[in-house]
Each structure stands twice: as structure tokens, then as C-alpha cells.
């Protein structure tokens, strides 16, 4: 924290005022340490489970209180943490996700390190939550490490056999490597701009009026961008930084996979959104030069990521491997929002990203919760065919699973549908708008139209492998196993995930508060861009 102090604000009281909104996270860190300490005296599942769970609920309740939001005026730098709409909604998501992880792990794994594991979840949750609010590079890096380091340990604790060790080591090495790449990128950004504060960096990077522009700046800017995206791409499993995910997911337990597929992705996407200037309110071309570079970069990443993820997922039979590829594909969809960027006018793309992130986390967490539930019930689920006939033997788990799978396919009334609708709309909007305003060559229309088509084609491909699972659940016959016990906590997690999925699917406005409306509710028009399409007689009474 010392480092932040020297970097950000002039006086200590200013600094304190600026980090005060982060109190829920600091509370979680303190509680995590306490749990760690307590673990040396006692390893008690219910005790540490309840403490961690209530800690997370308290943090959630605290985060909802307005005094823990910081006032935001424009893009000025207020301190290392910024609590704008994006951090508010993703913070809630992170806490919910952490609470879900605690619940899912209630009866999972061996009991010898249960306190440590709960403490680590608290740490990782706090880290992800700090990351979504990080407003300078140092805080960003520290909070990302605060997600990664507990994750290594969780991976190790949750499955200590040969495969578990192998996958932990793999994740550990590659994660360190990606952090190094990211730091390398940060050093470029710092070198060009002389600042660690994200708003300032973006402002300087994008200024075409940097007069005279030193010849090296565009190249250096690009190198920095690519390196940072590579580092964060590892966290969000963007192709080609995805290659660890299937092996690691398969090698670890359901619990380890559920941690890996949620917290680092929330943190990574929030960081990407901030670093590409998606959260900024200003527009009108300030960030344009930087943006168009990043836009095309993300275009390529998004299209390759979703296509590869979905196509390879078609061949998978191992459930965790399948969900690793499915997670890669969903990351590809979310990268579309980053590619669309700011040029559509305001916050449409950001809202789409947030809705999809909520949807993704709820769906994935719910699916893994059901896997854990089945596992503990004595029905070992590793492969798709292990799900056969589940709807008959366990209608509740089957019902939860089928709703989540429908959402993953993207059928209406679920969050998955709304997320895809928002993303398709963003992409099409950018394409069509650039064609009308002719601010860009017509190729932009083709690019972004193509991107939206790619989302749709990919959603259709994904339908295939998710449907195979629905078919296994409902249409095929399986062996009836006698349940040994009933891990209610995991089932409850699954149910809450279904509730969140459906709620976001019907009222997406719930999670986009403060970051602008979902795309179909309109965007602020760019200054000076009168849209002629508005002059149509829209306000006539219909029908006559």
C-alpha cells in the first residue's frame, strides 16, 4: 500500500478518502487472515464455512451502501480505486460469486485444509473485487496477483493427486509468465506516458495532438497494448492464450475449475474494459487512435476465440474439458464488446459486456455447483454420459441443469439470450452507424456485420454440444444410483444461479445500473452527429 500512497495522491487524508470505498474488500482481507490464523487451531467445516459465508454477505451488504461508492465526476483521477458503475456491479457479482464458491465447497474436498481454502476464497474474491475498481497500473497488478496466488493454492488444495499437481504447476508457471508479459506491457505504457494512472495514460496515448509525436510512440504504444492484452488474455482465456485451460480444468477438481472459470475472468474483463477506455464517459474521438488499434486487435481475438472454443468443444467428452472450451467460447463473445468499444457513442458495449459477464458467471458457477452436488451424492460425473437419465433420478438437479444449459445455448428468457442479443446489437450498431456517418470506410460495416454473424453462427455450433447434454439428462436412460448423502449447499448454489440467470434474462437493467442502459434503450448521441433516421414519424399512434 505504500507504493500506492506515493504514486497517487498528495496528502494522506486524500488518499484515505479515496480508498475508503474499498472498505468491504479490506474487511474481506482481514477476515481471510483471521480464518487462516484460526485454521491452525481448528479445522471445522461448518465453522469456517459460516464465517466465510457471512463475511461475504456482510461485504455484499456493505458494498450496497452508498457511502462505499465514491463520487465520480468525469474522468479525473481520484485515487487508486474508482467506484463507478462498472466496479459497483462487478463488485456485487464478485461477492456473490465468492459466496457461491464457499457454498459449493461446503462439503467438497478433504477437511484437513478447510479453513485455508475458505480463507483463500476470501482473498481471491477481495482481489477480484479490487481489480474491477483498480484505477492505476500498480493497483491493477497487485489485485490481479491477489487473485492468482490464492488460486494456485486452491488448485493444489482441492486435488492433491498426480493430475492435480500437474495442472497446478502448469497453471502456476503459465500464470507467472503471463504476469510478466503484462508487466512488460505496463513498463511500455509507463515509459511512453510517465504515469501509472489509467485515465492519464489513455488520455496521453490517444492524443493525436501530442505535438510533435515522437516517431517511436505509435510502435511502442502498440507493443505495450499487445503485451498487456496478452497478459490479461491469459486470465480471460482468449485464444491463443487459452491453451492451459482445458488441461488445467481437466486435471483439477470441479471446485478448482469453478474458481478458475469465474474470478480471474471477472477481474480480467474488468481490467480490459478499463484499459481500453470503455468506462470513460467522454467520447468524440479523444481516444480514437488508440481505440481503433485496440478495436481491430480485439476483433481478431474475439472471432478466433469464439470459433476455436466452440468448434473444439464439439469433440469433448470430459465435462470439465468441455466447459473449459465453452468458457473460451464465451470469453470470445465478451471480447466482441471490447472490440466494438466506444465508437457506438456511449455505454452500449460496456452494458453488453457486463450483462454477459453476469450471465456467464451465473451459468458456469451453477453448472459446476450441480457437478459437485452430483459428485458428492455418489454419482461420479466426469463425462457427458455420466449425466444420462439424471432428470429421472434427480428431477431438481436435472431441472436446474437444463435451465442453465438453455441459458448457455442462448434461449429466450435467460441471461444468455439477453447477453447475446446485446452483443449482436452492439456489433451491428457499430457497423451500421459507421456506414451512415461515413466516419470510417465501408469496410467497417463489413467487419462488424461479419462479427455479429460470427456470434450467431457460433451460438448455433454451441447449441450442438449443449443440446447433447440436455439429451443425456432427459432423453437417455442411466443407472440409478442410491444417494449416499445430500449436499444441500451445492444444490442451493445451483438454484441461486438459476434465479440470477432468469432475473438477468428478464430485467437486465438490474445489473447495468450506473453504466448506462442496455443497448436497446438508447445511447447518448455523439456531439454533432444528427441521426437522420430519427426524423421518421415514430410517434404516430400505431395501427391506423
Amino acid at each position, binding site marked *: 500500500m505504500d507504493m500506492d500512497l506515493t504514486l497517487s495522491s498528495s496528502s494522506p487524508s486524500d488518499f484515505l478518502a479515496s480508498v475508503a470505498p474499498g472498505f468491504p474488500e479490506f474487511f474481506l482481507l482481514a477476515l481471510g487472515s483471521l480464518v487462516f490464523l484460526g485454521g491452525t487451531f481448528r479445522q471445522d467445516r461448518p465453522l469456517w464455512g459460516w464465517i466465510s459465508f457471512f463475511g461475504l454477505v456482510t461485504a455484499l451488504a456493505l458494498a450496497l451502501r452508498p457511502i462505499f461508492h465514491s463520487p465520480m465526476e468525469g474522468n479525473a483521477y481520484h485515487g487508486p480505486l474508482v467506484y463507478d458503475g462498472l466496479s459497483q456491479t462487478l463488485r456485487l457479482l464478485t461477492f456473490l460469486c465468492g459466496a457461491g464458491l464457499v457454498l459449493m465447497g461446503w462439503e467438497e474436498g478433504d477437511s484437513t485444509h478447510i479453513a485455508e481454502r475458505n480463507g483463500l476464497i476470501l482473498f481471491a474474491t477481495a482481489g477480484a473485487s479490487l481489480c474491477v475498481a483498480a484505477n492505476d497500473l500498480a493497483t491493477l497488478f497487485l489485485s490481479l496477483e491477489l487473485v492468482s496466488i490464492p488460486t494456485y493454492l486452491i488448485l493444489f488444495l482441492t486435488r492433491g493427486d498426480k493430475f492435480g499437481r500437474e495442472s497446478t504447476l502448469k497453471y502456476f508457471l503459465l500464470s507467472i509468465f503471463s504476469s510478466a508479459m503484462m508487466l512488460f506491457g505496463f513498463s511500455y505504457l509507463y515509459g511512453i506516458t510517465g504515469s501509472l494512472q489509467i485515465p492519464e495514460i489513455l488520455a496521453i496515448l490517444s492524443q493525436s495532438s501530442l505535438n510533435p509525436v515522437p516517431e517511436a510512440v505509435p510502435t511502442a504504444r502498440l507493443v505495450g497494448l499487445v503485451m498487456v492484452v496478452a497478459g490479461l488474455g491469459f486470465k480471460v482465456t482468449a485464444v491463443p492464450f487459452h491453451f492451459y485451460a482445458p488441461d488445467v480444468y481437466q486435471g483439477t477438481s470441479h471446485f478448482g475449475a469453478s474458481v478458475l472459470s469465474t474470478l480471474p475472468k471477472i477481474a480480467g474483463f474488468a481490467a480490459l474494459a478499463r484499459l481500453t477506455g470503455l468506462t470513460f464517459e467522454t467520447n468524440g474521438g479523444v481516444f480514437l487512435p488508440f481505440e481503433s488499434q485496440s478495436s481491430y486487435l480485439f476483433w481478431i481475438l474475439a472471432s478466433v476465440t469464439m470459433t476455436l472454443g466452440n468448434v473444439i468443444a464439439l469433440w469433448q467428452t470430459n465435462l470439465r474439458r468441455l466447459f473449459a472450451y465453452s468458457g473460451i467460447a464465451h470469453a470470445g463473445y465478451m471480447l466482441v464488446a471490447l472490440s466494438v468499444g466506444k465508437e457506438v457513442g456511449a455505454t452500449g458495449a460496456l452494458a453488453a459486456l457486463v450483462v454477459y459477464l453476469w450471465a456467464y458467471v451465473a451459468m458456469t458457477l451453477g453448472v459446476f455447483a450441480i457437478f459437485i452436488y452430483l459428485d458428492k451424492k455418489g454419482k461420479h460425473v466426469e463425462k457427458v454420459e455420466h449425466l444420462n437419465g439424471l432428470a429421472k433420478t434427480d428431477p431438481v438437479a436435472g431441472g436446474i441443469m437444463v435451465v442453465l444449459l438453455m441459458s448457455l445455448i442462448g434461449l429466450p428468457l435467460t441471461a444468455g439470450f*439477453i447477453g447475446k442479443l446485446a452483443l449482436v446489437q452492439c456489433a451491428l450498431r457499430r457497423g451500421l452507424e459507421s456506414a451512415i456517418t461515413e466516419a470510417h470506410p465501408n469496410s467497417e460495416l463489413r467487419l462488424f456485420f461479419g462479427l455479429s454473424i460470427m456470434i450467431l453462427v457460433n451460438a448455433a455450433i454451441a*447449441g450442438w454440444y449443449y*443440446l447433447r447434454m*440436455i*439429451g443425456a439428462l432427459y432423453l437417455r436412460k442411466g443407472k440409478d444410483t442410491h444417494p449416499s448423502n445430500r449436499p444441500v449447499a451445492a444444490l442451493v448454489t445451483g438454484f441461486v444461479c438459476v434465479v440470477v440467470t432468469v432475473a438477468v434474462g428478464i430485467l437486465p437493467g438490474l445489473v447495468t445500473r450506473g453504466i448506462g442502459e442496455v443497448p436497446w*434503450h438508447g*445511447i447518448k448521441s455523439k456531439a454533432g452527429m444528427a441521426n437522420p433516421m430519427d426524423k421518421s414519424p*415514430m410517434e404516430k399512434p400505431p*395501427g391506423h
Partner: protein
Amino acid sequence: MKEALLALIAIPLFGALLTVFTARHCRNRARTIALTATIMTLAISVWLVAVDFCGWGGQPGSYAGETRFLILGTGGPVDPLRGISFHIGLDGISLGMIFLTGFLFPAALFLTGKASPLNDWGFLAWFQALQGLTFGAFLSLDLVLFYLFFELTLIPLYFMVGGWGGGLRIEAATKLFLYGLTGSLFTLGGIVGVSLALGGMDKGCDFSIPRLVLVAQDRGKPMEASMERVAKAKSEMEKTMSDREKDAARARFDEAEHDLFQKRKVEAQWFNWQTTLFLMLMAGLAVKIPIIPVHFWQPLAYREAPIALTVVLSAALAKLGLFGVVRIVLPLLPDASVRLATPVLGTLATIGILYGGLAALGTSNLRSMLAFSSISHLGFCLLGLVSLNETGLTGGVLQMINHGITTGGLWLLALILLERFPSLEIHTFSGMGKRFKAMGVVAVLLVLSSVGLPGLNNFVGEALSLLGMFAQGGEGRQLAVLATLGLILGAWYMLNFLLRTFYGDERIPATVQGRIPTDLTGCEKMVFTSILALCFLLGLYPQPALKRISADTHLVARELGEARRRQMGNPIPENIGSMVLTHGSPKSGTNQPSAPQTQKGGAR
């Protein structure tokens, strides 16, 4: 009225829930609930038809019982009229579809015997849910709402085909779902594109179909007002003397010219996008109908689905796609429709008519034959719709109802045969007419209706569709001639079926239980009598129905006529078929094109 429409959607969905929660272990109770719910919807839809024909409903050309409230909204202060809304209403085009849905679902359940495995609570719950969703899709006046119902119908279909179907049920269900999903995802893209392009981008998206239709009509209008404004500003600029006035006038002129320029640009862009959007929107609808290159799921699904489901799948759900064409594609994308509908969809429909006919001729199973004949008959509906004039559109919509009644009746016949016999291989039956007199009469009349005998319902719809296509001239004529061959094929396979099964030496296979099969029972007679009554009613006195339909198709046809005039520079072709409609449509005389030719003399 409003409540009736809401009830149509709510009652079946409520019935499904009731079945799930109260009748899981009692087959009789489940059946009672399902029958009660579906018969209630039948009563409501009959009431709606009655109200409409007595003139108590809405005005022709508007929507009756409109309900609208915002769903999928945000908490923010947004224009309450925009966004995705739950917006439903009834008009002449959807009225017939509502009646079909309300009639065939209870009929299929009613005729399914008490001992049938389909009286499972799961099947009945899905069946009712499917009916609610189908009603919803036919009533939707919001693009996303339509899509939502349209897509959600896949879920009950998947579970019903996969859970209660024949030997290849899982394959059939998977194929059905994946074809439907892939197609409708493109439709989703098309819907978003249409709403962005027509509904404006700055204020947010509009998905309301009636308002988007207004915009589409307006978009097509020549920009006379803007041009006038420019001319006025120009003359003013030349007139005015003092410097300050001159500046102001120049500013006005610049503004007017900019406005005109923008409008031209928007129109040019809009014109270009329409083709793409047309293809995207059609993708999902084409799969649902199905038209020819994307029909591969259909024969398998119709054959493997539980027979009660096949009845509604063919008679009601196939109409969802056609309904989408006439409700969404034609009015929202008039220019692309004029350019693409006849050459592309018309050709595909004609190929479908011939292919379906030939394939039906080659099959030996009654279910396969009816499946292929459905492709053929739905081709006639589509052919009518894509002829883009009032005659054809009206004929197409009427033919949708006729197909629902006649083919629905034939499927119901297949259903009661399956109640009696283990299989529907045509060669196992012979000379049934001697023993089963009532069944024979029903079969003969339904087959005659299906082949288009004058005096029965299909004749009217097919004739109007073909007339409409013929009236279009050019390739339309060739297609109409080719499609007429389909009628001959239809007569061939249908009469062949009749001849082989109900005439000739008596050879009746044993029943499932080895009992001697019976002729039609009282309930069955009741259902088939009402079907045959409808066939005769629509065949002998179709004017009220035509009048009701054309009140709404007329508006679509007018818009399309304008689009055609814009593009081709030639007038709407003389309405050959309008003599059939002259009683019906009081407006048809007043809307003949006035001054056609604009530019581009390249037309015929």
C-alpha cells in the same frame, strides 16, 4: 377482448403448470386438466372469430385487443414506448391462425385414446405449454416477443419428440432443435438489424412491428417534402435582398439541402441493407415452414414425433414461419421482398411443391406421405404470399387456414388409425371402406378437399394463390404453371392412397390388442364432422373469410405495390383475381396505382 387474448396465452401455460404440480401421478387428472385448458382456448378462439365476424372487434386494418407493457426494460428514465415490450393484438391475418391453434390442439388431445402413452403428465404439460407459446407467437406485435415465442416453441417440441417419439426419436429431436436453433439465430440477427435500421439508433431501438411498418412505408416515400423545402429555400435565397436576411436564407437552404442529402443517403443505405436483412430474417422462418433446402428435419420429425404432436406440428406450427413472412418480412422489407421474394422464394416454393409431390408419391407409409404432402401444400401457401399482390396474399393466408384444416384432418385420421392399428404402412390396408363406412366417407372428403376439388376449401386458396402468382407476370407466370403440375401430383398420390386403402379387396390388419377394430366412435364423428363442415363452409362461401383477411393483406399489398413501382417503374399488374375479391374488399377499387413510371425503364 384484451383479456381474451391474454387468456389465450395464459390458460395453456397455467394448465401446464397445474399438470406438473398436481397431476404427476394421476393420468386421468392430467388428461382432464389438459382437455379442460385446451377446450377453454377453443371456446375463446371461436368466440374471437364470432366477435370479429359480427363486427364487434377492431377496425379492419388495425389490431383488436391491443395490450402493451414494457418488459425486459431498465430502471432508467427511458422513453416508455421503446425497448422490448409485451405487445399483443389480433388482426385478420392472425385470426385464422388463432382459430387453427385453438381448434387443433384440443382435437388432437380429444382423439388420443385414454390408454395412449401420450396421456403422460409430462407430455400433456409440454403440449399445453406449446399451445400457449404458439398463441403468443401469432399474437405478438413486437419483434423480440415474436422471436421469443417462436424460439421457445423448440423446447417443448424437443422434449416431446425426444421423450415420446418413435424409434429414431433422439435423432429426430436433435435435428429438429438444431435446425430450428440455427435458423432462428439468423432471424434474431435480422430482427436486430431491422430494428436498428428502421427504429433509429440514437434514441434506442424500437421493436414494435406496427410502428416499424409505418417507418418502412415512410422510408419508401419519395422525398417530395424535403425536395420542396430545398426549392423553397433556394427561391427565398434568390429573392431576399438585405445581407442579414440573405445569410439566414442561405443557412436555411444549407440546412434543407443537408437534410435532403442525409435522407437520400439513408435511403440508399437502407436499400442496400434490405437484401441482407431479408435473407437473415428468412433463415429461421424458412426452417420452420419448411422450404426446400432446409427441410431435412421435417420428414424425420413428422414421422418420429408422437402422432398427436405431428397433428399440431404440421397444422399449426408450420404456419408460424409463413405467418412471420407476411407479418414481418414483407411489410418491413418491401424493396427486398419485391426484388427477392418471387425469384428466390417463389422458385423454392415451386420446387418444394413438385419435390413434395414426387416424394409423397414414392413413399409407402401414410405418415411420410402426409409429411411430404405438407411440404407440397405449404409451397402453395408460400407461393401465394410471395406473389405480393392482394389476390395472392389473401389466397396464401386463406390457404394457410385451409391447409391447417384439411391436412390437420388427415393427420387426425392417421391418429385414429394409429389408435386402432400398430403401423401406418399403406400396403397393409385394403378395402377398409366396406367395414368402416363413416371413416371412408371422412377419408374421401378430406382427400378430395386436399386435392383441391372445387367446392371444397383448398380449391379457393390454391386458385387464388396461383392467380396471384400468374398476375405477377414474367417468371411468376412460369412458376404458376409449374406449380399447377403439383396439383396433378397431389391428386395422384392422394387418390392412390385412397384407392389402395379404402377400396379393393378387404384386408384389414389386426389391432394392437388383436381385437376387431371399430368404425368411428361418437367423439370422433363429432370432431370430423366439424372439420368437414369447415371444409365445405370455406369452399362454398369463402367471402366473409376473404373479406376479413384482405382487409389486412390489402395494406401489405399496397406497400409492396409502391415498392415495386419505385423499383421497376411499372404499375401493379392488373388484379386478375380481384373479381373474386370485389365483394370482399371495398377498398380494392380505390387503390389502383395512379402514375407509375419513375425512371429505370428496364422493366417489362
